[in-house]
């Protein structure tokens, strides 16, 4: 997952950059035109010294003041043309490239939204965000400058040297010689610089992580008086970063002094040689002047090759990072050809693991787990699965509480119902229909969830709650009121703008209990057929909890619900309870039954063993 260092090989970079083609295609005409214009403009600036030469050797040498007017006029026209052409080039590409960047970002965002949740568990959001921002900016800059200017400057250098050789081959040769060592030196420095730059990038990443944690965990830092040691860790990391940055500066200093010295020496040599030739009458004074101006004009194109290549390299890495995400496969609907291969055979007919349920093949309604196993895709081989052959049946209209010790996999089980994770084996059915064959869209419209972590988005309270409703809900206002009433979220009315108050990262911050109630309202707002609630009342105080429970009972009466519960009060919302232990359903029954018959359950619910004394679980 971390950015694997891309070997600095030209072919692989070129291949990476070629992947941009589908995005470049729509703007290819403009890019091409812009390149042609840039080449023209760049060559125009090479013609200017030739006009100078003509003026020096012609009207000036002939003492013809009138003649210089013509030369100056040509110069003026050339200058205006150059300026306008460069302007047209920028104007041609500005909007299309902004559009290209936006299109790539939009695709990335749409794709990320549809990647499996398991993908998001593996990737830090910061990593993905940097792909959507910095990396795309690098790609856009590559198309804007290096792509065009590698061509333009290459052409300019070629044309320039042709002109130089046409003027005087000896002087041209003197100027040409340093180009070779210069490019070698520059590319050597650039490759070392790229390494240092990547190291600095990683160190900045570490530093950012530290900052992020120190801010997010500020209450812990302060609560334990740890800000000194955090500051020390910060200091160490930032010192390391400074060290790397100084290495970068030294390399940069090396590159730039080479870039300064080598061409100057060549130009100096050409000057001395040229002066001798002028004195000998081999060339005209105008030729020397033109020569030196062309040499000067060529300095920038030659110097730029190195860093244009470096920018291309960076853009190639950025492109790789971008497509690394885009190549991930999206969640697919309705698997073709008989579903997943490793699906287990239907459970044996006796169903011994589920004594509470009579074998009743005719009644296939409700929510049903059949031989469901789950292990995280990235877990090691030997690790036992989180869920192991779960058989469970929730009848239509029934509410089942799921109880288990901390970390027993309750939350994982709930995530399987809306297919946030895919079962490893077995199947889950809603009213007899296998959820693996349903379009996710429909499945998720049927199943409504309240998560353990109540996340609100940057939108109004009302919008946040109504997210749970189907798109065509009649009378959304009434439905909203009902949902808020169920969740006892009356506090909404006294917010500054009532249900229109903005919340989330960019709005008012609400307490944990308030957010939890809104998340609950969101889950019940659409009168969903199936409801999955993960410990929905944990952050509420006793009073509110009692009120929510009373209201929730009404809702639960008409839906099929799975409720993760930590305490007796929540369990009592349910008709039956299932005990999850060691990845299996250990027992199913009513609260009272299990309290009497199951030691682990009694222990979980009351903290003391109910029947079997000293019979500690696990």
């Amino acid at each position, binding site marked *: 997952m971390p950015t694997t260092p891309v070997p600095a090989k030209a072919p692989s970079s070129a291949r990476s950059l070629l992947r941009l083609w589908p995005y470049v295609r729509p703007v290819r005409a403009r890019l091409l035109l812009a390149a042609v214009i840039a080449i023209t403009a760049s060559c125009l600036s090479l013609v200017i010294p030739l006009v100078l030469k003509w003026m020096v050797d012609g009207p000036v040498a002939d003492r013809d003041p009138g003649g210089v007017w013509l030369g100056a006029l040509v110069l003026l026209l050339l200058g205006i043309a150059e300026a306008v052409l460069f302007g047209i080039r920028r104007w041609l590409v500005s909007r299309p490239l902004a559009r290209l960047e936006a299109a790539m970002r939009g695709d990335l965002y749409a794709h990320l939204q549809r990647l499996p*949740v398991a993908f998001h568990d593996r990737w830090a959001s910061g990593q993905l965000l940097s792909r959507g921002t910095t990396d795309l900016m690098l790609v856009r800059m590559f198309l804007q400058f290096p792509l065009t200017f590698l061509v333009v400057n290459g052409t300019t250098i070629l044309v320039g040297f042709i002109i130089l050789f046409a003027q005087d081959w000896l002087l041209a040769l003197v100027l040409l010689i340093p180009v070779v060592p210069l490019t070698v030196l520059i590319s050597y420095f650039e490759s070392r610089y790229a390494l240092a730059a990547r190291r600095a990038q990683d160190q900045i990443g570490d530093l950012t992580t530290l900052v992020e944690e120190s801010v997010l965990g500020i209450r812990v830092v302060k609560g334990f008086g740890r800000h000194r040691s955090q500051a020390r860790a910060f200091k160490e990391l930032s010192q390391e970063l400074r060290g790397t940055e100084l290495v970068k500066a030294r390399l940069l200093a090396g590159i730039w002094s080479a870039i*300064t010295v080598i061409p100057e020496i060549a130009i100096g040599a050409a000057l001395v040689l040229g*002066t001798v030739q002028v004195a000998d009458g081999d060339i005209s004074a105008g030729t020397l002047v033109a020569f030196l101006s062309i040499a000067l004009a060529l300095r920038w194109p030659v110097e730029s090759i190195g860093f244009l290549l470096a920018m291309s390299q960076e853009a190639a890495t950025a492109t790789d990072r971008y497509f690394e995400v885009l190549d991930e496969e999206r969640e697919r609907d309705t698997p073709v050809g008989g579903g997943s291969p490793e699906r287990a055979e239907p459970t044996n007919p006796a169903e011994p693991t589920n004594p509470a349920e009579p074998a009743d093949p005719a009644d296939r309604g409700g929510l049903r787990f059949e031989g469901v196993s789950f292990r995280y895709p990235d877990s090691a081989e030997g690790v036992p699965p989180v869920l192991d052959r779960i058989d469970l049946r929730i009848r239509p209209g029934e509410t089942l509480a799921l109880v288990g010790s901390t970390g027993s996999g309750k939350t994982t089980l709930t995530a399987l119902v809306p297919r946030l994770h895919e079962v490893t084996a077995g199947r889950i059915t809603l009213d007899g229909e296998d959820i693996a064959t349903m379009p996710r869209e429909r499945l998720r419209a049927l199943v409504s969830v309240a998560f353990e972590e109540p996340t609100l988005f940057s939108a109004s309270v009302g919008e946040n709650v109504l997210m749970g409703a189907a798109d065509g809900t009649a009378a959304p206002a009434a439905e909203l009121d009902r949902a808020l009433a169920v969740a006892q979220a009356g506090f909404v009315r006294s917010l500054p703008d009532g249900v229109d108050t903005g919340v989330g990262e960019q709005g008012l*911050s609400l307490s944990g209990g308030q957010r939890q109630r809104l998340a609950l309202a969101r889950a019940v707002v659409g009168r969903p057929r199936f409801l999955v609630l993960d410990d929905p009342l944990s*952050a509420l105080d006793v009073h509110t909890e009692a*009120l929510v429970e009373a209201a929730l009972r009404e809702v639960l009466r008409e839906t099929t619900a799975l409720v993760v519960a930590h305490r*007796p009060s929540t369990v009592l919302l349910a008709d039956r309870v299932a005990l999850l232990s060691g990845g299996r359903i250990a027992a199913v029954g009513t609260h009272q039954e299990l309290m009497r018959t199951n030691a682990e359950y009694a222990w979980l619910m009351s903290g003391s063993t109910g029947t079997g004394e000293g019979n500690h679980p*696990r």
Partner: protein
Amino acid sequence: MTTATTSSGAAGDTARDDDPAAGSGAPGGREPGAGDPFDQDDLPVPPGATGALLRSLLSPHRARVLRVALILLFQQAAVQAGPLLVAYAIDRGVPAFRERDYGPLIAVAAGYAVCAFGAGLLQYLFISVSGRLSQDVLLELRGRIFRHSQALSVDFHDRYTSGRLISRSTTDVESLRELLEEGLQELIDVILAFVYISVLLLWLDLSMGGVAVASFVPLYLLVRVYRRRVGAVYAERSTAIAGVVVKFSETLNGIRPVRAFRRERANDTEFQRLNARHERSNGDVMLELARYVVGSRLVANVSVAAMVLWGAWRVADGTLALGVLAAAVLYLRRLYDPIDRLGMFLNSYESAAASLAKIAGLLAQTPSVPEPAHPVELPPAPGGQPGREVVFDGVRFTYRTGGEVLPRFGLTIPAGQTIAVVGSTGAGKSTLAKLLARFYDPTEGRVLLDGVDIRELSTAGLRRGVVMVTQESFLFSGTVAENIAIGAPDATREQIEDAARAIGAHEFISGLPDGYDTDVRKRGGRISAGQRQLVAFARALLADPSVLILDEATSSLDVPGERAVQRAMDTVLRGRTAVVIAHRLSTVEVADRVLVMEHGRIVEDGAPAELIGGTGRFAELHRAWRESLV
């Protein structure tokens, strides 16, 4: 009476009760949509603070700044000598050579070599020295932001979202780095080149120099117009990208609800809108630069044509030497070459200035809970007992906006007592706890620990005395063991495991892939909320404070977990003073004393049995709770 409590419990908690600064708890404390600078990411910057910040960063390096300036002065001199040598070569070298006098030509060769190597060497020196300088400045600035943000009190962090604070110390520092490393040299280069070349041109020929200097007027105007226009589009673009980033990260961090509630399409539409806005402003910035480049190039090229015309006329006239014209033409090229780059510099300057202003605004925030200048040590615990006495002496606490959270009250908790604080949301329980933990300072009165005002204790001393475990149990990247050891950095592995065992966390930790050495970030998503809270408890246990505060710290624990916590308080933490805030009343049973709070006041105070037996609020609450247990 009880019905009133019920309704206020359900509907009266408009503000986070643990957040006095949110202000909305006070009626009219916040005007919707207006006023609060925290909402706009726009902290007030005191006038001149940005400049003062820059000065204070640079002033310790005054000598080095001077050295850098000198190096650059000489470096530019060496660079700009070239065309003069050309003029000398053409006007003197050529005729002398024809006379068989090689002196001037050798002088030109030597001069050119010296200048070339000198320029290279000075360039090297300049980049190394200025690199060191800018790194030292950045190091200092990063450190300052970090230290300051850590020093700022919790109420600041409650309001200033973490995302903003993070972008202050990352993107904003980064844009300043770009300015220091690339932009500033460019600017000084450009200015020096302008000065040198203008002087040289004026010296070579007064009238031609005059034309060059005159061309600076339209250039200056162009730069000004550009700065004004690009400033506006820049601000628009940075707002637009911020919108994109917020939407992006919000979606990624809430991917489960996004999926479960089928928000993908609605999000696509919303993102498209934000993305299009950024696209537009991004294009605007590029076009603005295009406009500037065309304008400045036009001015430059027209001036070159004018000067060449004038110079050539004069050479033809015989009033100007040819070499001087050649030198002038070469200089003109150099003069106008960097104006494109000036535009880019202006871009980085704009963004750096904006960033610096934001940083200055952050640094201008004063910590409302400052460390004492002369910290006092706690007296040794009397009688060798681990707990300490806590006294709230005439304490009153109000919002900054004026709303009163805790009216003046007094409270004494004897050493070793465990008190439970109950009451509905918004009653002020958390505020009480945070005053004791010194997350906030009281508006009036004092909080005393064994007779010492906690404001006079050093941070280390305070944390040996008081530790608070909150509902949110944040895990830092690193191993589980390291996370527990935050409470006591010198703890041995044995002590860490003992602490985990005491709280009942040992079992699940041993079950993790690498046991205590499991990196919580890699498997972070797999550590459940309840398990996190157990780790947080182990942390507090290991810290072994005199006073322990538990603020809703058991909300995600199951019953056995809660029992383990109670057991640990009974055994490991025996004799410590403890303040327990809990929604659930199970915890209350272990308390020696119960406080019932309502609207910021302590309305009942007594032993649990006594209160349960009575007819007050607590009896009512307790009955409801018993019923819920069945």
